[in-house]
């Protein structure tokens, strides 16, 4: 009962960082949503802002770690030349080649939009701080970009899970 090095990295990239990303997104979204004048108190806002900053910065850092490990560690094993690589196996069968030609081709690119947008949101929260309570338009903008960052990561994560199911990196 053990994993190979490649399987470990697949787990770190997909499950470990994926779970952290999901947690940070949930915390960050709840924090951003609740920054409404009617829902904050002078005592609570300090603690709430601290939690929000941790949430959005964590999400940005995790998003970067996910795309970096995915692109520079797991992906080279996926696309290795030779008949045993996951890519070769998918392309060898007409029934599975779509997983590479559409799924992997989209995932490997679109995933990179997620850390960019997550970083933009982290910057907005760190720079603007409590002003997000007064300027609801900026808060809603941050939520929109935050959700988009999650959606792009979700597309990449879902295709990653499906492709790993069909042709795991070993």
């Amino acid at each position: 009962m053990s994993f190979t090095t490649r399987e470990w990295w697949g787990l770190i990239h997909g499950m470990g960082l994926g779970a952290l990303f999901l947690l940070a997104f949930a915390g960050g979204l709840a924090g951003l949503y609740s920054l409404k004048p009617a829902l904050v108190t002078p005592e609570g806002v300090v603690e709430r802002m601290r939690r929000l900053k941790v949430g959005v910065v964590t999400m940005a850092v995790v998003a970067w770690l996910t795309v970096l490990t995915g692109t520079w560690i797991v992906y080279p094993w996926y696309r290795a030349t030779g008949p045993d690589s996951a890519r070769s196996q998918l392309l060898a069968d007409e029934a599975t080649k779509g997983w590479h030609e559409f799924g992997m081709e989209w995932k490997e690119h679109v995933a990179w939009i997620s850390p960019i947008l997550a970083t933009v949101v982290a910057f907005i929260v760190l720079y603007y701080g409590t002003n997000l309570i007064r300027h609801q338009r900026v808060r809603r903008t941050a939520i929109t970009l935050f959700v988009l960052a999650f959606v792009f990561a979700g597309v990449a994560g879902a295709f990653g899970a499906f492709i790993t199911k069909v042709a795991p990196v070993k």
Partner: protein
Amino acid sequence: MAHAADRRSTEERMDHIEFQDKPEGPIAAAIIAGGIGATALGVFTTLAEASEGAKNWLQWSDAVGPLSGKVLMAVLVWLVAWAVLHLALRNRPYETRRALVISLVLIGLGVLGTFPLFFQAFGG
């Protein structure tokens, strides 16, 4: 009546929260730069498919292939755009809603450029 009391209570609480006045320009710069980064990713993805020369140039790592150059160039374009826009807008009260609309259009272009059915249409 109850509504007016709620509003008064909210206003009183807001009076006790410390706010630092800051221009929205740096926020708008970050938002637009994010969109530019996404568009750059779409452009490099499509360019690598359309041109064999661009594909070879973007292959900065043999193990990763052209994806290495596409994503690093997109990140570079994003950071440069952010720095330039930040310097240009840092003291300006730039409207965030306008920045978001521009950014959403740019993100849409970026997603289109990374969508396989689109960029593969440029392949040989």
